[in-house]
């Protein structure tokens, strides 16, 4: 017994150090796995609140750019409307039963209050949370393309796993085709992401547009990602494709959060299938 007490006396600082380091390691490993980082994230009320105040000040510096983005989006939507009118020349049509109208996605607006892009595991913080019906695994996009997937929510704030996170995997395809692969990031450049598992025989060229594939329950299909920058044609079965993002991930303002209303149903069905 004396020996044990003596041992603790002698190594008390070292033992304290080891305990604290073990706690830190526990947090690090927890943070790396998606959905498990309950303890250390910026979506709690203290850090979220402070980031919110700071972004309310810095937001003014980006007003010009935000306005331009909104105008661009308006033009895009107006063009879409004009096309719609061309397709349906008769202006009036009979609505047979409005109950049968079926909505799959809902959109809501949020503002980015903290943005990381320089690390290997990057996260963003949004100023909306559970109070605004935001939950885990919802898509986050803006006018120019995808941004990430929601990861942790508190009452008022949400943490988003950015596409610039080496853990992210997103289903993506060549625009207007059904050739798909998965989108990952190798952690090197914040402007380029990689498309893996893309079949080698597909007719893909530099400059082609890549969009989300719609094979996941998170992203709707057809959301823009980027364009092909470089195709690696080494002797592999799958070609490794570098994609330049349409979004400048350093400079983000307002985003849309997309909720898939069918997510639960699809997941239930797939869980049954796996058993």
């Amino acid at each position, binding site marked *: 017994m004396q020996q044990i007490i003596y041992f603790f006396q002698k190594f008390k*600082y070292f033992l304290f*150090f080891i305990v*604290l*380091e073990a706690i830190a390691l526990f947090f690090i490993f927890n943070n790396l796995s998606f959905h498990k*980082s309950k303890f250390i*994230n910026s979506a709690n009320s203290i850090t979220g609140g402070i980031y919110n105040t700071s972004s309310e000040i810095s937001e003014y510096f980006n007003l010009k750019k935000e306005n331009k983005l909104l105008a661009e989006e308006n033009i895009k939507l107006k063009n879409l409307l004009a096309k719609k009118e061309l397709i349906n020349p008769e202006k009036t049509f009979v609505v047979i039963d409005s109950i049968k109208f079926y909505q799959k996605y809902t959109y809501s607006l949020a503002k980015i209050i903290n943005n*990381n892009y320089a690390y290997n*595991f*990057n996260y963003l913080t949004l100023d909306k949370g559970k109070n605004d019906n935001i939950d885990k695994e919802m898509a986050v996009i803006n006018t120019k393309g995808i941004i990430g997937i929601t990861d942790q929510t508190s009452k008022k704030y949400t943490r988003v796993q950015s596409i610039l996170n080496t853990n992210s995997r997103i289903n993506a395809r060549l625009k207007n085709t059904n050739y798909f692969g998965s989108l990952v990031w190798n952690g090197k450049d*914040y402007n380029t992401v990689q498309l893996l598992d893309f079949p080698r025989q597909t007719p893909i060229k530099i400059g082609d547009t890549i969009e989300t594939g719609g094979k996941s329950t998170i992203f709707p299909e057809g959301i823009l990602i980027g364009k092909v920058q470089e195709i690696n044609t080494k002797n592999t079965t799958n070609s490794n494709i570098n994609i330049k993002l349409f979004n400048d991930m350093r400079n983000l303002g307002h985003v849309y959060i997309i909720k898939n209303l069918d997510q639960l149903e699809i997941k239930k069905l797939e869980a049954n299938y796996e058993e």
Partner: protein
Amino acid sequence: MKNSLPLILIFFSLLFSQVFVFNQILFLGAINPYLYIIFVFLYPLKVNRFPFLLYSFLLGLGIDFFSDTGGIHAFSILFIAYIRLFFIKLYFRKNKTDYSFFKLKSEPFGKTFNYVVTLTVIHHLIYFSFANFSFENYNTVITNTLFSSIFTLLLYFSGSYIFNKTE
């Protein structure tokens, strides 16, 4: 209480300056100074090391909360906080009776330089290794460590030069 008030002030000013100023610099894409580690250099040397280790850990954890890095900052700052004593003994040849008189300002520049550089490089190497979390791209870890260390040290030494001048 009289002694701990400036330390509390230093703690929070380092935390917020790191989160809102130094983390936003991102020179050439990824290079940031991690100036909050001067907490380890500034904290007075005492025989009882429990408060020092705990406060260093909490400072690191506070920065982790803001920058979504899990516990990487906490891990790396706690590591240099623990091995600080070893390097003080190695470079300045101090023993227990000298602890309360030890001040980094009054030591010769050469020794201080060695001490600060060693701890900074160790901290940055641990931090970037964990931030990368794989042996892929290890050369970027090395270059990041190198450039960030230079950045941090430049700021630290210019800052300490200015503050020592005014007194």
